[in-house]
Structure formats: structure tokens, C-alpha cells
């Protein structure tokens, strides 16, 4: 599949944004309102940026509003509806947290639920496609949610450190034991990485799923089938969109590069965590940047390495 930059950025950034929404909601009662508000605003900016990136994938972006209409059957439509609802809830949570309202806790959990539902809906856009065997399994939602949780949490670490610098001391309080916070930081990246390894393992085992050129042409009963004459000599939408092969030969190297950025760098920095609050802020920013860079590389492979059954009609 063609790895469109718009979709790679969309899934990565909105994944991280809604992941931060999730943690903001879950931890809303355990931190000062202004910290929740800061996290919520960062989450809204990031998620919205991701959603805007997806618009660049459309050939007729002015008709994007129609995608709110088909929630009964289409996961893309469900995602389009869930995302703004989740963002509005985050905004409500921000307002409630700043005013120290008693609904903050409940609102937090509802926001967290909606954020995770949005990420799941995004992943289902890909998971539902039976023609792309690598995507069509429970491993895809697991992958998307795992990276959303991890990148969201590292963003949260950054927001915590930043609020100590930016906000007055009494407004930057976070009532979470340092050991718990560090443990989560140390677990989430390897956990997401494990989900990625599970996904890669499945992808390598099932290139085209049950389908073959024999089943695609219906000629399997007569012998083995091989393409002799292509239907067109140049490129076509089908071959450029579904037959992407460039740099597939570097796939294995890229996988390890993504592991390096996604997990190795964040874990090494977690052990160090910098001198003083400025150092901690900078190192948590480095964790976010490295982790997200790793996800972007892995997401590029998610598209580039996955094969579509239409290529069975060509010399694949």
C-alpha cells in the first residue's frame, strides 16, 4: 500500500493526541486543575493537527462534512463523529478542572473512554479491510491503542515537567507517586513495542491471507496461474496506490531503526532524566520526539509493507 504522508501523520499525531486525552481524563482528579488544563490543551492541538492532516488525503476536501453521515456502516464516518465529540469533552474537562468542579472526575473518565473509542475507530478503518490481510486482524487495533497510550503518556510527562516551569508551584501539583509514574514510563514503550512485534510477525506470516492468483482468477482448478500480459503498460491508480514496492527491501533495517527510536532511546533517557527541572523537561521532550519519530517510521512500514489482493492480478 502507498504510504501517504497525510495518513501517517494523521494516525500518529491524532493517536498521540487522543492518548494524551485519555491520560488527562484518567488522571484528572490526581493533579491540579491547571495541569489538567495544560495537558488538555496540548491534546486538543495535537489531535486537531492530526485530523487536519487527514484532510490532505482527500481529493475533494470541501465535501469532508459529508463523512459525518454514514456512521451506521462506515468506520471512517464513526471516527469522524467520535473525534469532535471527544475533543469537545476535553474542552469541557479543561473548564471543569480549572474551576475545580466536582464533575471533573466523572467527566475525566467519560473523556478517557471517548478518546480510546476514537483511536479504536481510527484503527478499524484499516482493520475492516479484508483485502489487506496484514491489517485485517485484532492485532491492528491493539497496535494503534498501544502506541496511542504510550505516546500520550510521554506527552503527559512532558506537560508535568513543563507546568512546573510555567505555572505557579501550587498550581503545578501532581499527586502521583514518582515510582508509579516512572514504572508506567518504563512499561508503556516496551508494551507498545511488543504489540508492534506481534503485528510484524502476523504480517510476515500472512501476505495475502487466503487469496492467491489462482483464486483471484478462478483458474486454479486448471493449473498454476502466472501473469503473462499486463492490462496496461504504464502505471495506473491501482499499481501506484496498492502496488507500492519502493524501499521494501530496507524494511527490516527500518523496523530496527523504529525500535531504536520508539523504545531504546526513551528507556535510556528514562534512566537518566536530566539535571533539575529544566533538564527533566528537555529530556521528557526528547522522549516524546524520539518515540513519535519511531512510530512514524513504523507507521510508514504499516502501509508500505502491507499487500493488497489486487496485486495478485499482476506479477507480484
Amino acid at each position: 500500500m502507498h504510504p501517504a504522508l497525510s495518513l501517517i501523520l494523521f494516525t500518529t499525531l491524532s493517536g498521540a493526541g487522543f492518548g494524551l486525552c485519555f491520560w488527562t481524563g484518567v488522571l484528572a482528579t490526581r493533579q491540579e486543575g491547571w495541569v489538567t488544563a495544560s495537558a488538555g490543551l496540548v491534546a486538543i492541538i495535537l489531535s486537531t493537527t492530526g485530523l487536519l492532516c487527514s484532510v490532505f488525503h482527500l481529493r475533494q476536501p470541501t465535501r469532508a462534512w459529508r463523512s459525518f453521515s454514514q456512521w451506521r456502516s462506515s468506520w471512517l464516518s464513526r471516527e469522524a463523529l467520535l473525534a469532535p465529540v471527544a475533543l469537545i469533552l476535553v474542552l469541557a474537562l479543561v473548564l471543569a478542572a480549572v474551576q475545580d468542579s466536582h464533575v471533573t472526575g466523572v467527566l475525566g473518565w467519560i473523556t478517557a473512554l471517548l478518546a480510546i473509542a476514537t483511536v479504536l475507530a481510527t484503527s478499524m478503518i484499516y482493520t475492516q479491510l479484508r483485502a489487506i490481510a496484514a491489517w485485517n486482524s485484532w492485532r491492528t487495533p491493539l497496535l494503534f491503542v498501544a502506541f496511542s497510550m504510550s505516546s500520550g503518556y510521554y506527552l503527559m510527562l512532558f506537560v508535568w515537567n513543563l507546568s512546573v516551569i510555567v505555572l505557579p508551584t501550587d498550581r503545578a501539583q501532581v499527586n502521583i507517586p514518582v515510582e508509579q509514574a516512572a514504572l508506567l514510563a518504563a512499561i508503556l514503550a516496551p508494551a507498545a513495542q511488543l504489540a508492534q512485534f506481534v503485528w510484524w510477525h502476523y504480517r510476515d506470516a500472512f501476505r495475502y491471507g487466503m487469496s492467491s492468483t489462482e483464486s483471484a482468477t478462478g483458474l486454479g482448478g486448471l493449473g498454476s496461474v502466472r501473469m503473462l500480459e499486463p492490462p496496461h503498460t504504464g502505471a495506473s491508480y491501482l499499481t501506484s496506490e496498492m502496488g507500492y514496492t519502493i524501499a521494501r527491501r530496507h524494511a527490516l533495517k527500518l523496523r530496527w531503526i523504529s525500535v531504536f527510536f520508539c523504545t531504546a532511546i526513551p528507556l535510556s533517557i528514562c534512566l537518566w532524566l536530566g539535571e533539575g527541572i529544566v533538564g527533566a523537561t528537555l529530556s521528557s521532550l526528547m522522549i516524546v520526539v524520539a518515540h513519535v519519530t519511531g512510530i512514524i517510521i513504523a507507521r510508514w512500514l504499516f502501509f508500505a509493507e502491507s499487500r493488497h489482493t489486487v496485486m495478485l492480478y499482476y506479477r507480484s
Partner: protein
Amino acid sequence: MTSLPDKTARKLGLVIDLDVCVGCQACVVNCKAWNSGGYGSSLADHEPYGDAPEGAWLNRVHGYEVVSKDSAAIVHFPKSCLHCDDAPCVTVCPTGASIKRSEDGIVLVDESKCMGCGLCAWACPYGAREMDPSAGVMKKCTLCVDRIYNENLPEVDREPACVRTCPTNARHFGDLADPDSHVSNLVASRCGQDLMPEQETRPVNKYLLPQDRDGAEQMSLSGFVLADLADPSPSGLLGWIDSALSKL
């Protein structure tokens, strides 16, 4: 609405006879010609006469080599939308542009609603949908919906352009829900095949496979001396003269 109808009154579709197709590409060209001026936006090309021509086509003919233990054959394989009963391209559509009509089962794109996201083309396992490079909307076979019901055309022309133009009658058009239709009879007598049944799309279009010719050859050749066929035996008066002269 991009939900699929529970049942369609008719199932209009094609039956494609791979035994008869000679790969002449006439259906490909006539499809392009008709659909460049028919329903929806024109089927665009980029650099049609340049170094790298590229464009949207709704029907393409592939060529395959089928090799078994003791034979090899070339099969010409036309491929267009199969108008599936469980069309995955329809249900994924977020805007309501993709529909499967309940009256005749034709899968269509309402181009005025299409936002050009391309998800339906990903959902189709057969590659039946192509994005128009100029209009930025999804194009697909309409089963020539603007021909088959078009009362301005002579009745003989009210069938899809690919079927109308096929010089070998390899493409047949009809109602596959009607068990007595011409196409249903073809499917029944020749074991019409679904493409990729494991994708669970339940295609309406069926393919008829090339038939085994080895049996036919043995029947016609056993006990015959081909040279005899070139040596006619006269009957009547000529026959009597022939046999009388032979006896001399």
C-alpha cells in the same frame, strides 16, 4: 445510505466466458469511449500520448498463462466491477456516495457526494475502482446504467458497452436473480465461478472457465484417417460409375 440492501429485486450483472475471449481489448476501448461521455465526469487520462500515459479505466483485460502437469494455456481475462452482493466498497464509504441499488443490484458512485478519500478502492479486493486523475472522484463500472434503461437508444443497444461491442460474444448481460435468464442458464450449465470467494463479497458477475479440449480431440480422431475426409465418395449416378470403374 451505505448500508447494503438485504435483498435486491434483480441482480443485473455480467457472465464472462474465458473460453471465448480472444483478448482483443474491444470491450476495454468501448467502455472507455462510452464512459468518457456518459454518466458522471469524463474518464480522464494524464499524458495519453506522452511518455507515461496514465488514466482511469473501468474495464481491463489481463493475460494469464495457466500451466498444469501436461498442458499450458493462455487465458485472456477481462476484469471489471463484479457488483458484489456483499460489496465491501459500499459499507466503508463515509459520505454516502457509494450505494448498492435495491432495485437492480448495481453498485454506483454518486460523484457529487464523493470526497475522494479512496477508502472504497482499498476495500475492493478486485481493483474495480479507480480514482479519476482530474475530477478527483472515484470511478467504477456503472454496468452502463445510462445505456441499459435508455429509451433514446435502439433496443439492441440497451446493454453495457463492453457486451455490445464484444466481437466473440464472450460477455453476456442479464439478470442473475432470474433462474430462467440466459445468463443464469450459462452459469448453471458451465459452472460459473466466483472470483476470490474467500473474500466473502458474493460477486454477482460470474466467470465461465476455458473448457477441456483433450476429450473432444480424441473423439474426433479415433478410428478416422484424416486423408479419407479429403477424398469424397460420390453417390447416385456418379457413385455407380465410380464403383463400376473401380471393379474394372
